């Protein structure tokens, strides 16, 4: 189960590392040490497992999606992370890091959030573990996601609207880092994805890798063998690395990361970081990123707020470069078609993030043929996306418009 990467300084090949102010290096070293000692302590991992089981509803089901499979032309298995407490895989990471925060004796947690899912998961874990919680959220996103702001507040978190830069997720990360450098003595930065400076990419991976570990065992039980492919959506990349980690050593299992293709990859209005193929440094690590010819970060575009980020976790860049995993974009339009298809074939309304993975699986099914079994990470549920879906399919103003 152990993964040899990253190296001691957090490098996955030439990716990852620490491009951070010196002020945060010693705290990152302390965090690395605390995390490694916690993961080696059965008292910690046992408590984490117990809380996941009793409180978060983990392990999630592996579901044989027979009606979707008929349409897809291959057997599709869905890892039902949408059934977890708070409705997505993110609770695993939030709970793991919150528990680590307690262990480090820090009373305060800060987090960034885009659509609000990680913010809600963090606020939830902080309420459960009695930690002070401050969530930075782009001002634009606080307006688009007012309901999630209300959730976080109900859970006792403070939500700080960020008005700098593009006022979206990347600026929320910038603001959280600015807070952290001034508060690191008493504060843990509970980063929401497997990106950022070492140890975050590896630490977040290890807190969410239960997704793949469970799915691997569940596949063996259900099929008597491993699936032919594992598919997940990639924004920052936490749900995908959580699925992939268990399968990386199984070379017969193809790994596919589905990137948000926005208006269409060819339009340039997308968030398909790896597919666009430029390497740089953002938010503490070297990885693929969307940038202009001067190295200024370009704003990303995706219908899915959870995938709308111009960077990606460094381990994905490494998996792409070594060709262990393949990354490809799926457009907003194709993701929304998959959103509707899954809703109508299986009665499961997915998060739009996860709908990208389903859309990718439909393509991959055609390529691999009818004998293939494809494992898809259904990373979250779609309740949060009903406004977007209502607009996209004209469900409220013109109820017939979205019908076939």
């Amino acid at each position: 189960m152990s993964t040899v990467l990253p190296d001691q300084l957090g490098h996955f090949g030439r990716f990852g590392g620490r491009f951070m102010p010196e002020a945060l290096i010693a705290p990152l070293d302390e965090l690395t040490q605390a995390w490694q000692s916690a993961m080696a302590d059965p008292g910690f991992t046992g408590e984490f497992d117990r809380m996941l089981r009793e409180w978060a509803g983990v392990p999630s089901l592996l579901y044989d999606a027979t009606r979707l499979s008929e349409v897809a032309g291959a057997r599709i298995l869905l890892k039902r992370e949408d059934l977890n407490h708070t409705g997505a895989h993110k609770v695993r990471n939030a709970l793991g890091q919150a528990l680590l925060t307690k262990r480090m004796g820090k009373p305060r947690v800060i987090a960034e959030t885009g659509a609000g899912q990680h913010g809600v998961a963090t606020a939830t874990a902080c309420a459960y573990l009695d930690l002070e919680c401050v969530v930075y959220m782009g001002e634009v996103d606080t307006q688009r996601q007012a309901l999630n702001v209300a959730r976080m507040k109900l859970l006792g978190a403070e939500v700080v609207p960020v008005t700098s830069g593009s006022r979206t997720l990347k600026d929320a990360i910038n603001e959280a880092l600015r807070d952290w450098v001034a508060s690191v003595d008493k504060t843990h930065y509970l980063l929401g994805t497997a990106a950022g400076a070492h140890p975050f990419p590896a630490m977040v991976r290890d807190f969410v890798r239960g997704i793949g570990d469970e799915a691997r065992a569940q596949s063996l039980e259900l099929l008597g063998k491993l699936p032919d492919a594992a598919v997940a959506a990639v924004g920052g990349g936490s749900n995908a690395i959580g699925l992939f980690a268990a399968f990386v050593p199984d070379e017969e299992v193809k790994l596919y990361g589905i990137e948000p293709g926005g208006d269409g990859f060819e339009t340039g209005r997308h968030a398909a970081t790896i597919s666009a193929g430029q390497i740089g440094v953002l938010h503490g690590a070297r990885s693929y990123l969307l940038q202009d010819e001067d190295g200024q970060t370009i704003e990303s575009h995706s219908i899915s707020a959870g995938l709308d980020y111009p960077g990606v976790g460094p381990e994905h860049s490494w998996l792409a470069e070594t060709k262990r995993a393949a990354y490809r974009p799926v457009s907003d339009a194709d993701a929304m078609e998959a959103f509707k298809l899954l809703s109508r074939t299986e009665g499961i309304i997915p998060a739009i993030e996860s709908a990208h993975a389903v859309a990718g699986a439909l393509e991959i099914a055609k390529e691999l043929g009818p004998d293939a079994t494809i494992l898809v990470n259904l990373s979250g549920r779609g309740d949060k996306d009903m406004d977007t879906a209502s607009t996209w399919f004209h469900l409220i103003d013109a109820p017939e418009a979205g019908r076939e």
Partner: protein
Amino acid sequence: MSEVVALGKAGAAIRKANAAGRAGLVGYLPAGYPSYEGGIDAIKALVDGGCDVLEIGLPYSDPVMDGPAIQRAAEAALAGGFRVRDVLRTVEAITAYADVPVLVMTYWNPIERYGVDRWAADFAGAGGAGLITPDLIPDEGAEWAAAADKNELDKVFLVSPSSTDERIRMTTAACRGFVYATAVMGVTGVREAASDLAAPLVARTKATTGLPVGVGIGVSNADQAAALATFTDAVIVGSALVKQLLDGNGPAGVRSLTESLAEGVRREPSAAAGR
């Protein structure tokens, strides 16, 4: 004897000030603000006001170490169409204007994107003295170190109150020019109260190196500069100067504040003078 080399251009200028019985004054302004030409005029005002070393900020889309003043100026510069090549032109204009070492303070990605070797060569060609790299630590800096050494450029890395003694030793060993001590835990910005973290950090840093140590701590007036000058080799001022421009006081405001700060660093006998 290796220290002669490690002093570089910026370190030599600071030591010259120290030899005159005072701390050096390092002034920061971003390139491209309020405009390309306006930025050059403002930086010239730093020279005219008495800075010993200049720091020119390279506007970047994600300045995680900067507080509101520098963020606002950088955002405005980028919105005004500022390009990385404009920094090189700015450096060229300033080094033609005065014989003062010009450092560029930059987040790492624009340099990596430009190409580290190509940047070092072009920047040295423009007369630049070196880089201050707030998000590049020596652990990740091998490529930059090689390019800088090849082009005889200063490498100014940062130390912080949270740095362990071991990290401070490693960092100062990697520096050429001077060592930048960020003496508060927090982003850039003007601060009213002096930090009690500065003096111990300077002492810990000096224990590892003969290089000059400059302190950036949110200084905004002559009194603060004078107080800092009693225990450090150079006083670094940024946000307060940027605020002169944000407040519409233009190059005249920059020059007037710089003159006042220059008076401040001359007010008390500097601890560095004895070196």
